[in-house]
């Protein structure tokens, strides 16, 4: 069949004529409709990373503790005591834009499955969210729907939501960002790879029946959105967290059985992707019989079955002699399982319906054969620095800033999430990083997500470096040492040169920062085509990071602890105001150079802070980030419920930059007076500037002669709701 005749069909599966030719070349014939649909799904940007793959090769993915890097359902890193942490972050932006509750809920569901497919018990969820300003009714609808969806799924499933972040910016109107990260824990010898490497094994489909929901969701996630996108609401899946919990418990039980070869979740591109990847990883083939798949409705075609993205389904591959034992597990959890196929020698996927072969494709072409795209990139000229208006009333600015949507307390959001279930949450949401006890040990994991969208918008390279550095700094402030990274790259339409330029620069920044801080990237996800009616989102790389604290007694809180303690600023303040919350509050245009991170100095700072915490010198540590120094000080005071007296903060920069600039590589700490010499020595050893800031105590937050705010007034401003 000629390419021209199939253009409409190609558009429906978001493939271009070159890709079609590549398919014909690989097959030696034209694909039938089902085969074309399968290619469309697996060759979608979402599944195949065809635009980003070449860039991602720059990322460091190895390290002495890495047990599993990218390419599996999730990454895994050794955390001692024979245990591994398994984690990944993933986007669910497009579905959430159309149907915020279910979009966000199934985003959480999908990432949970990725983690328990690896044999790990999900231990924590984090969410990185971006919305348009809340003065619009539609944005409020998206915001409330997404927050409710995350809570609805995680709370019912029984996995604590311990952290994340949310920013509001006009650039996300109509195209919210919903990234969910899941972290699980597993014994090394139970860590499982989803690889069907034994011909003759039985393929079981477990969990929900298959419906028509989500057909071509992966494709939908790989095209820009327009006014017709709402019509794709049926492409958004509906979540059932109750079923997912049963599925998780069953998979963890299965993981103890001999004869279970592989467990793979069904996510984007449904059965097509799960079956193909399982078999391809194991260098085998797979035969499927769609007739055996239990359905929710009648009249479903093989196309519907193969491309459905119905949630809460897993593929379980077992040796034939282990099927009975596996079925006992499913019966215990009252789960339904269909025997839908067999692992075969040879690298083909064959789909049959009532004995008729309806698809027959080489897995190598289907899974790995997509021609990579390298679209043209453009790099805008650097913008001039913005003109700074001087602050007249710093106290009013402080109160306005701390009440602003991007800085005010996130409690109204996280108190709707169960952040304690499983009894391991030592530091919950709202701090630099969450701290989670590793069950049965004296260790803890520190978890965070970060990504300041304005720094990246001003300079994708510097902004992404900053995100990595900040995530690491957040982890270090708890006393833990950063061990590995996952990332979600949310960008606009890469076919636009400026957007592809952003992606290129951002990945370069990610690679450089991870190399400098010796952090392997073990998993990740790319979400492109975040474009609505020709408007692209600001470039939004989100860094998820995991840290390890070897001794829980060496943890460090973020809030001021004791009256009379002395507060110090570590690090250097520069004349950097571009990209700050302060300028945003003033309504200044987003231009200029964002704060720049010096990775060598960052390393020294983080080492010095960790050293000080380990020696018990610090009573608290808090990263200086969005909002600048005064906001960080105010947060520490609010966290600890204690006042602070700063006689007057001076520095070599303007008062605006000193109070509200967001220079990176800074941490505020408090120490008991007698340990000050030790702190000075530890900082001097690593050449970290240290500046005395104030004394803990009193009922006010006081800075010099100009700012004196009663703590309860500060708290009221901070606790402005959403």
């Amino acid at each position, binding site marked *: 069949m000629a390419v021209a005749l199939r253009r409409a069909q190609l558009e429906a599966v978001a493939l271009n004529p070159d890709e079609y030719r590549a398919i014909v070349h690989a097959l030696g014939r034209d694909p039938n409709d089902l085969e074309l649909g399968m290619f469309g799904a697996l060759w979608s940007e979402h599944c195949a990373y065809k635009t980003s793959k070449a860039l991602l090769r720059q990322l460091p993915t190895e390290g002495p503790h890495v047990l599993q890097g990218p390419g599996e359902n999730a990454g895994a890193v050794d955390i001692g005591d024979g245990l591994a942490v398994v984690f990944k972050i993933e986007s669910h932006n497009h579905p959430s834009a159309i149907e915020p509750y279910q979009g966000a809920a199934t985003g959480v569901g999908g990432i949970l499955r990725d983690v328990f497919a690896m044999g790990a018990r999900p231990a924590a969820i984090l969410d990185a969210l971006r919305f348009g300003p809340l003065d619009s009714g539609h944005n409020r609808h998206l915001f409330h729907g997404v927050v409710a969806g995350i809570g609805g799924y995680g709370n019912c499933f029984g996995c604590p939501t311990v952290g994340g972040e949310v920013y509001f910016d006009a650039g996300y109107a109509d195209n919210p960002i919903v990234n969910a990260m899941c972290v699980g824990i597993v014994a090394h010898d139970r860590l499982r790879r989803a690889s069907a490497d034994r011909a003759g094994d039985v393929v079981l489909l477990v969990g929900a029946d298959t419906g028509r929901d989500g057909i071509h969701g992966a494709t939908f996630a790989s095209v820009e959105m327009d006014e017709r996108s709402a019509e794709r609401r049926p492409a958004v899946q509906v979540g059932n967290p*109750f079923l997912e919990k049963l599925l998780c418990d069953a998979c963890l039980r299965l993981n103890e059985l001999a004869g279970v070869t592989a467990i793979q979740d069904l996510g984007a591109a449904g059965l097509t992707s799960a079956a193909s990847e399982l078999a391809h990883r194991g260098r085998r083939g797979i035969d499927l019989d769609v007739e055996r798949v239990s359905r929710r409705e009648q009249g479903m075609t093989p196309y519907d079955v193969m491309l459905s993205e119905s949630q809460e389904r897993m593929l379980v591959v077992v040796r034939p002699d282990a099927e009975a034992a596996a079925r006992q597990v499913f019966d215990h959890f009252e789960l339904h399982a269909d025997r839908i196929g067999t692992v075969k020698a040879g690298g083909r996927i064959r789909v049959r319906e009532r004995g008729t072969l309806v698809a027959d494709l080489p897995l190598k072409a289907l899974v790995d054969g997509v021609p990579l795209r390298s679209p043209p990139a453009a790099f805008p000229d650097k913008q001039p620095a913005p003109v700074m208006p001087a602050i007249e009333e710093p106290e009013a600015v402080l109160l306005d800033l701390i009440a602003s949507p991007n800085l005010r307390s996130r409690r109204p959001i996280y108190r709707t999430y*169960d952040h304690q279930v499983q*009894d391991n949450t030592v530091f919950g949401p709202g701090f630099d990083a969450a701290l989670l006890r590793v069950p049965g040990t004296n260790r803890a994991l520190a978890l965070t997500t970060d990504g300041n969208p304005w720094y990246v918008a001003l300079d994708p390279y510097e902004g992404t470096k900053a995100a990595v550095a900040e995530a690491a700094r957040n982890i270090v402030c708890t006393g833990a040492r950063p061990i590995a990274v996952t990332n979600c790259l949310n960008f606009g339409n890469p076919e636009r040169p400026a957007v592809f330029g952003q992606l290129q620069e951002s990945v370069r920044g990610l690679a450089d920062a991870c190399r400098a801080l010796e952090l392997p990237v073990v998993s990740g996800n790319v979400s492109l085509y975040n474009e609505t009616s020709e408007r692209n989102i600001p470039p939004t790389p989100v860094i998820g990071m995991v840290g390890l604290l070897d001794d829980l007694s060496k943890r460090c809180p973020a809030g001021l602890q004791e009256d009379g303690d002395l507060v110090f600023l570590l690090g250097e303040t520069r004349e950097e105001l571009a990209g700050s919350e302060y300028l945003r509050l003033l309504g200044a245009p987003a231009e200029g150079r964002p704060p720049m991170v010096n990775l060598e100095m960052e390393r020294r700072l983080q080492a010095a802070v960790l050293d000080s915490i380990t020696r018990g010198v610090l009573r608290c540590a808090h990263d200086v980030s969005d909002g600048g120094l005064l906001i960080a000080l105010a947060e520490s005071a609010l966290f600890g419920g204690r006042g602070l007296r700063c006689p007057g903060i001076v520095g070599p920069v303007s008062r605006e930059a000193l109070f509200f600039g967001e220079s990176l590589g800074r941490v505020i700490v408090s120490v008991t007076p007698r340990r000050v010499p030790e702190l000075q020595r530890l900082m001097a050893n690593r050449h970290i500037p240290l500046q005395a800031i104030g004394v803990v105590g009193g009922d006010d937050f006081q800075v010099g002669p100009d700012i004196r705010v009663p703590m309860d007034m500060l708290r009221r401003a901070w606790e402005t709701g959403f």
Partner: protein
Amino acid sequence: MKTGIVVFPGTWSDRDCAHAVSEVLGQPARYVDHREDSLDDLELVILPGGFSYGDYLRCGAIARFAPVMEAVTAFANRGGLVLGICNGFQILQEARLLPGALLRNASCEFRCEWVNLRVEQSESAFTLDCRPGQLLRIPISHGEGNFFADPQTLETIEGNGQVVFRYCAPDGRVTNDANPNGSLRNIAGIANARGNVVGMMPHPERACEALLGSVDGLEVFRSAIHALRRVAV
């Protein structure tokens, strides 16, 4: 104190309760499957929190038909100690082992946060170690914890001293501001008339280690241990 922790499909506080009872308190415990019909080996039965059967109908409405609930009812009627936490409290009400109902939170939102509880009586099996007026800091985590009862029932349980815990301010005053979910008279937990069955919305199993923020939940479990010893003597 041989403890049974009932697991319905969708229960998730089972492991936390087991951790508190066996790891923290060093008492023997086992899980009880929802299909079991005998609890003869047990002295204390806990119905933990979670979303039994997804709570897709009404919280606890399906769980109460599970085979194990007949055994729980018989166990309670024999005077066995039964503690329902969160979803477990909802199930005990659905099973008519405790009066009243738990409605959607007045905020219409799920709430997970620390609350202060005032112990109202020290006669129940789960407050024996406390003194009336004692404050406990224990977290809640629920969307449907808004205690409701008709006026007559409310008077009965108040008159009988069946109200075990009320939400209160840090200084012990029972105020509207301290009420996280709209519960009538700030009721957070109640007992049956006999005092051997208690239901509470807060999660004592989450407040058993200083590392996690409070050890006040231990009072609830330790009271049960003492209640059993008292029976034995």
